[in-house]
């Protein structure tokens, strides 16, 4: 019983991190049709800068932790915004080339991070409370999992509210549907695209800081490793669907967790099988073709 509770809650924690990565991917794909291979790089960058700052102001203090979250999100956002402006935007509507450009960027930047931070993992610490556990129904659940879940839910709500309630959100939803009409109304839709990249990058950066606490380290390849699962999540959830991404994140993380524990480490295979099944039965994913 307590094992199941432990697997459930820690699975949700992992799902939260998957969601933070895939929400941005999904938004970007939905709006621009770009499959962003560089998204993992945003995550690693957020995690590295978050840690650099936290370790300077005191990693084990709550202030340091909060600051690292903010810095991580900002770093991811800034990196994403630059990527959009200088690379993706110039290949307007050439989707295959846009994908290729992000592939190249990912290769180059991971190598750059290797050069800057080294290939060895950089170990990360947080406030002591994060490492402690809370007992839920007999299971000692590490506290950082709860933090991930709360942050992911907040991000989900924030993005949904942003898309629903703000003018920019409105423009983005309209742009998903008919980009040239938005332009014809006098709106520079490109800044909306940059904004979507920025939001995606911020979520990824935030996810990066939380992932570094979840895994206990940051390394240049951390983001790319998570990216493959984020891709799978995005495809299962339905490219472009935020709620789809949320549901699929939880589904994939739980499946992976339980299969790893009960089916002798077959978690990754189970996820691939799930992907194949979903694509064969619902090629556009669980919630395909919806903006929200």
């Amino acid at each position, binding site marked *: 019983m307590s094992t199941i509770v432990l697997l459930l809650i820690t699975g949700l924690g992992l799902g939260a991190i998957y969601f933070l990565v895939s929400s941005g991917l999904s938004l970007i794909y939905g709006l621009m049709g770009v499959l962003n291979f560089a998204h993992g790089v945003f995550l690693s960058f957020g995690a590295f800068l978050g840690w650099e700052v936290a370790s300077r102001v005191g990693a084990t203090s709550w202030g340091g932790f909060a600051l690292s979250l903010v810095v991580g999100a900002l770093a991811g956002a800034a990196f994403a915004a630059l990527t959009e402006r200088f690379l993706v935007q110039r290949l307007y509507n050439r989707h295959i080339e846009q994908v290729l450009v992000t592939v190249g960027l990912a290769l180059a930047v991971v190598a750059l991070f290797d050069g800057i931070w080294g290939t060895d993992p950089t170990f990360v610490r947080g406030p002591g409370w994060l490492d402690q556990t809370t007992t839920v129904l007999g299971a000692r659940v590490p506290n950082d999992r709860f933090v991930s879940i709360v942050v992911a839910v907040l991000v989900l709500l924030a993005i949904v509210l942003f898309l629903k309630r703000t*003018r920019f959100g*409105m*423009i983005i*939803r*309209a742009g*998903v*549907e*008919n980009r*040239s*009409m*938005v*332009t*014809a*109304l*006098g*709106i*520079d*839709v490109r800044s909306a695209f940059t904004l979507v990249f920025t939001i995606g990058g911020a979520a990824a950066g935030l996810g990066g800081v939380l992932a570094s606490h979840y895994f206990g380290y940051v390394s240049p390849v951390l983001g790319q490793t998570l990216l493959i699962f984020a891709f799978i999540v995005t495809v299962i959830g339905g490219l472009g669907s935020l709620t789809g991404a949320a549901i699929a994140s939880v589904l994939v993380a739980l499946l992976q967790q339980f299969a790893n524990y009960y089916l002798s480490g077959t978690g990754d295979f189970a996820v691939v099988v799930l992907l194949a099944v979903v694509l064969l039965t619902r090629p556009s994913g669980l919630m395909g073709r*919806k*903006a929200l």
Partner: protein
Amino acid sequence: MTTAEPVLTVRGLSARAGGQQVVEHVDLDVAATGVTALLGRNGVGKTSTIKAIMGLVERTGEVTLAGKRIDGLEPHRVARLGVGYVPEDREVFSALTVTENLRIAERPGVEHRYDLVYEVFPELKERGGQAAGTLSGGQQQMVALGRVLINDNAVLLIDEPTKGLSPRLVQEVGRVLATAAEVAPVLLVEQNLKVVRDLARDVVVLTGGRSVHHGDAREFLEDDRLTQRFLGVHGGEGESA
């Protein structure tokens, strides 16, 4: 042609769409007041001409709005200079509500005339919360027109507003166009010659991506030889072809 300075002039416009030349050489003037009709058979490039003015397709040539060259500008800049665009297939944002569809069209720095829009289309107020995708074709056309009426425009480009509408709606849209033409000059693409006859003062006729006739609307429609040649119909019958 009117004697007053035209608000919009187009010279030697050509445009490409989907990799092919769809507009080859178009000259036209939009008079400072009233409706100028852009006529021609299906597929001669009317829509493409309008899109080229907006900058929505790749184009070359000269486009001048109130003395200012706009052919190098991106679509959103053209729009911000006061060019209102009602596309051929309405292109409302189906996932957004009616109100959101209007709000997204608000252009910064100009007054937003919701009262005018709600006055001519009271239905849009009633259905404010409905997703635009669930509206009937006619209602969607109201949204599309409402989106431009809300701003103060220098010129309106309206592409086949009566397409696929029932006769009753056609009349209603005709009435709205008359209202719209009072606040801003209009370049109107229209297949329904009855609507053209009622509204237009000047006509420009396209054939095969070229402008081949400019003139007074009434004279053109009266001239069977011309309508037969350019539109394949007897103008007098007021039919679409």
